[in-house]
């Protein structure tokens, strides 16, 4: 009886785990930290693409000093391929259809940071 209760409890604990809320990106494209002089703006060759297609996103940076580090993120499970100031956005699968918010954080050699973001609409 004891074993049975332990098994059941463990299973219910695991299956009942609370799901973490998905991250949300601020859709304001000028969300650079206000105290930083580093401004990042993102442009793309296509704002709207179909699943299976891809687009190139370029980050333009002003106010930064020295060498720059680019960190790219997306609020879905799409692929971002490449590195540096130009990357390719490639939607992975039908579950990413809709708005994909791509964010690029740029850090300069004095550790000043700037953030730019852009929305790519993926049509199924």
């Amino acid at each position, binding site marked *: *009886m004891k*074993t*049975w209760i332990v*098994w*059941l409890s463990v*299973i*219910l604990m*695991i*299956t009942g*785990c609370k*799901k*973490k*809320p*998905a*991250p949300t990106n601020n859709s304001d494209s000028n969300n650079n930290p206000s105290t930083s002089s580093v401004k990042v703006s993102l442009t793309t060759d296509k704002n709207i693409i*179909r*699943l*299976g*297609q*891809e687009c190139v996103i370029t980050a333009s940076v002003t106010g930064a000093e020295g060498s720059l580090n680019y960190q*790219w993120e997306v609020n*879905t*499970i*799409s*692929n*971002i*391929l*490449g*590195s540096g100031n130009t*990357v*390719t956005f*490639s*939607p*992975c*699968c*039908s*579950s990413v*259809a809709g708005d994909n918010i791509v964010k690029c954080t740029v850090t300069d050699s004095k550790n000043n940071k700037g953030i730019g973001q852009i929305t790519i609409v993926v049509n*199924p």
Partner: protein
Amino acid sequence: MSTFRWILTVLFVLYYQQIFSQCCSANPIVGSSNIGLLSKNTLRVIAFYRYSYSDIYFEGSKKRDDIHYLKYSLYSYVGNILSFGITRKITTDLELGYYLLKSELTDANRKLSTTGLNNGICSIKYGVIKHSSFELTAGAGLKFPFTQTLKEKDGRPLSISLQPSTNAFGGVFLLFMQKNFVEKKIRLFLIHRAELPNAYNKIYYMKGNTFFTSFFFAKSFNEHWGTLLQLRNEIRTRDYWYDKALPGTGGILLFISPQINYQIKGFNFSFLWDLPLYRNVNESQIVSRYAFSFICTKDFNL
């Protein structure tokens, strides 16, 4: 009495979670050899190869020729299952597998490929009823990743469909029933395998639960040759990314898999081919055009 409770627990677990709807890709689990109980001190080694190619799209249960976001998706997989009979009624299994290739070609002609270890599964099976003509076995196990780090390209994780492993832990539950008709050289068996619950991986992606139900009809022609017909149903619930149930995941698939067996000097060689009978996926998804497997089995009495 305790056995009865154990069965109840397994049945409860199998049907506890609500099935939202279900999905697609063929599973590396093959054949019928990795099921049932072994005699005490028998070691069974199963090696198999599986290839699956997908380039057809379905929306619900309808084929869609106008969708082609991936030109194809394929995998080539080798696996190994080690089973050992601890006692007459208890058998333990270790399942390991490696993707020799997992590849996708997008509509934009970008080819992305990976290789790597799938999750391992360590399980134990208990013979609830075991006679020469009838067997009922229940089992449970742990699905474990060899790494929690996802395969990456350019410093970021590749898409989930390309990952060789779920990179997360999970549970596996099994029910197996077998009826032998010795005089007619016929065996009927039914397997139900549930892969649940799955945990989140490092990027907060959680694979949906999977339920496989297979009915097998096996007939031996002579001491060497035999055939087997498998009717397999796969039900997958939706995947989750954080708390979001993902569209384009989950579904119901029904296959018929003819299998031919050849036995010689203690080795059993099998070949099986998956023929889809029915597919009903959530939203639109790529589904397999064909899949086949080679299996080699050998028992050792230690």
